[in-house]
């Protein structure tokens, strides 16, 4: 991850929340004590990013600063601090591949290789058709089901080269699989099937 320049991409000149989001903004701000509305900056930026194709243009940061009566620089500081805010456009399917130690031990190299070769892009890049973006991220907190990829808001687990390829195809077809393990494992149970508690205990059985 490198600090991208603020003015690297063409920025929209204006941004405003739609009506539904404005209603949510009111609810969010109401959660904080009067005069502490600046605390709402994170949820509002998130809302703005969701409304704006999963990336946060400067106009949106300025707009949020205006809503919360903050100096724009204070919003820029927050938005640039958190890597979850995308300051540049990302593809419709935003692949965040975990390569931290547990995922790496469980074969994230294959997952990365598959993503890169199948999409024809490197980490940190987007496909020309605007469908996919690829980014390397640190631990996503699903080590027990490593390796994992986060696609937009959803995490897909227990990946290998094959299932990663399938996942990409499914996304391209606009039909992503259900969230969770792609190896058929249930939650974080043993990969080879249950080894205990294989049957429902009988009533009265301790």
């Amino acid at each position, binding site marked *: *991850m*490198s*600090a991208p*320049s*603020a*003015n690297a991409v063409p920025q929209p000149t204006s941004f405003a929340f739609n009506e539904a989001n404005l209603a949510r903004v009111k609810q969010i701000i109401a959660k904080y004590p009067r005069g502490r509305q600046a605390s709402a900056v994170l949820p509002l930026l998130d809302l703005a990013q969701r409304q704006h194709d999963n990336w946060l243009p*400067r106009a949106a940061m300025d707009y949020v600063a205006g809503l919360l009566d903050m*100096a*724009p*620089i*204070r919003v*820029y*500081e927050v938005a*640039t*601090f958190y890597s979850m805010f995308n300051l540049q456009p990302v593809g419709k399917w935003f692949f965040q591949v975990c390569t931290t130690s547990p995922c790496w031990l469980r074969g994230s190299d294959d997952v990365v290789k598959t993503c890169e070769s199948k999409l024809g892009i490197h980490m940190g890049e987007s496909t020309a058709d605007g469908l996919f973006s690829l980014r390397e991220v640190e631990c996503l907190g699903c080590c027990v089901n490593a390796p994992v990829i986060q696609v937009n808001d959803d995490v897909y687990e227990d990946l290998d080269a094959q299932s990663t390829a399938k996942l990409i195809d499914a996304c391209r077809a606009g039909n992503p699989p259900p969230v969770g393990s792609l190896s058929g494992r249930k939650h974080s149970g043993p990969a080879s099937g249950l080894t205990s508690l294989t049957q429902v205990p009988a009533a009265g059985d301790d």
Partner: protein
Amino acid sequence: MPKLTVDGKVVEVPNGATVLQACEAAGAEIPRFCYHERLSIAGNCRMCLVEIEKTPKPQASCAMPAAEGMVVKTDSAITKKARKGVMEFLLINHPLDCPICDQGGECDLQDQAMAYGFDRGRFDENKRAVPDKDLGPLVKTSMNRCIHCTRCIRFCTEVAGVEELGATFRGEHMEITTYVEKALTSELSGNIIDLCPVGALTSKPYAFVARPWELRKTESIDVHDAVGSNIRLDARPPEVLRVLPRLNEAVNEEWISDKTRFAYDGLKRQRLDRPYVRINGTLQPVSWQDAFVAIAARLRNLPGSKIAAIAGDLVDAEAMMALKDLMQALGSPNIDCRQDGAKLDASTRAAYLFNSGIAGIEQADALLLVGTNPRWEAPLVNARIRKRWLTGKLKIAAVGPQLDLTYKYDYLGAGPQTLADVASGKHAFAEVLKNAKNPMIIVGQGALARTDGAAVLGLARQVAETCGLIKDGWNGFNVLHTAAARVGGLDLGFVPGQGGRDVAGILEGAGKGEIEVVYLFGADEIDTAKLGKAFVIYQGHHGDKGAHRADVVLPGAAYTEKNGTYVNTEGRVQQARVAVFPPGEAREDWKIIRALSEALGRKLPYDTLAQLRGRLATVNPVFARVGEKPAAAAWGAFGQVGTTTTAAFVSPITNFYMTDPITRCSETMAKCSALLVAASGKTGTHG
């Protein structure tokens, strides 16, 4: 009052003091980068680590509250090792470019690396590279050198009140930036150069000009506004190369405005360096003798009533005194030091002073601004108001221009009518003033330099009297001046004598031919077109408006080139000192007048500056109290009861960066005004 032991020494410190302050009290010096007494505590540089008994790790002393019974060790092996470790980390990304760095020789990091640095680095990776930022024409950046102490961010946010700098991104990628590239819009932005402990922020006009040890340092006083900021002039003769602030808690703390700091390059341009006399319509260079002869010829047999003198905004009290004495000797009562025509009453000292003192703002709890834009008229007064406002104890209201002053205030109205409402108690804010412990009014020149100025002054006095601004040990009636010479001029009585004319009268008389000779002493802010056919003598240091109109030009000295007394808006008498000599044949101003008096056959009775200062002190004893806190001035009746117009109060300053002949000649100030004033102007695209 916790008592703690520092290096075996027991010290008692006030509640809320930090360990660092306790160490200082015990005489132990603690290295630091991010900590600064006037800014909030950040605790992020870690340089001030000390060992405290019963804590598992060294503690950042700047952020650790001192507690009863603490045992602090500032020279233990653990402390030293911790500091060395921090220094090594700081130097990992700091470039080794001291030889080409402007901070070299006065760099905190350089100095402290001498004490805690290691002779080589153990970090084999590349140093990080950070793009430089463009912060405008004043502050040069070299962001590779930045150690992220965040002093500049905290200064802009807290003291200057302009939230434009911030730290974006994080960790290895953290950058100090405005994010959207733009010039800082603060009038105090130059102070971040002093605050920066490394060479990341340096002065752009001073870039690669000199090394600190080459410079001769002179302690002096600033004249670009009426605050009288204490400054240090760093000169390598014949030029002043930079201006730095000096500590004076009562006046400028340790800040100065950008105008004070950066206008010095105006001292090199458009200088009058030899006398001139207008011959056949053009100014011809002549000798001093010929210039005096020309004046003497014109003044011969002229009655005093046909002669007049106007003193400008940058002149020193000594020369004004000499000129006043000379005019008296010539029999002229037509003298005035109020170029802008402000209806200031010279008879009562309290009527034209900032009586509460600038430091007094920190006791005020209610403030009414009248016809003033302190942010441009006196940025350091504005910074004090903001400082007090930040404590939440000051309620502010304004009558006059409605501007961004870096703090919130109630806008009451535009003109005298609103002030009259407050004076009569009709306005709700009158109650706020009455209920306040230390209420204050600040009257700007925008409220006084108008035809109904005397009536407005009367209204302001009425506010002061009816709302309880004058009480035992507190005088909340404050006049904010914009001219450094003004209070001194009023103190020594450079105002029309019996039957004399003021500035408007002089100009009118000159236009009608009733005044035949006008002596402009550094007076450039008047409408010279109104001088008619009068014979104009201009004494000053810059070829500005006055010199262009003059028939005789006498080259004087700028504030950096003479020993002169200035009285600031609070009535504080301070002395500026010679840093460099005036250019060419220019001379110190009082000497010119003294020499001219001899040529006119009316020799003034002083031959040395000391004698002249003695004369000043006999005219007004305040001049003997140099540098002291001004004594409380007696209250009296001043101002007029009269009708006021409905015209709105307008601040006299339309361009902060260009207010006097020096700043008008300064390239740096020209860049600032093109960039900042034009951008904020009403005709700009942002309007």
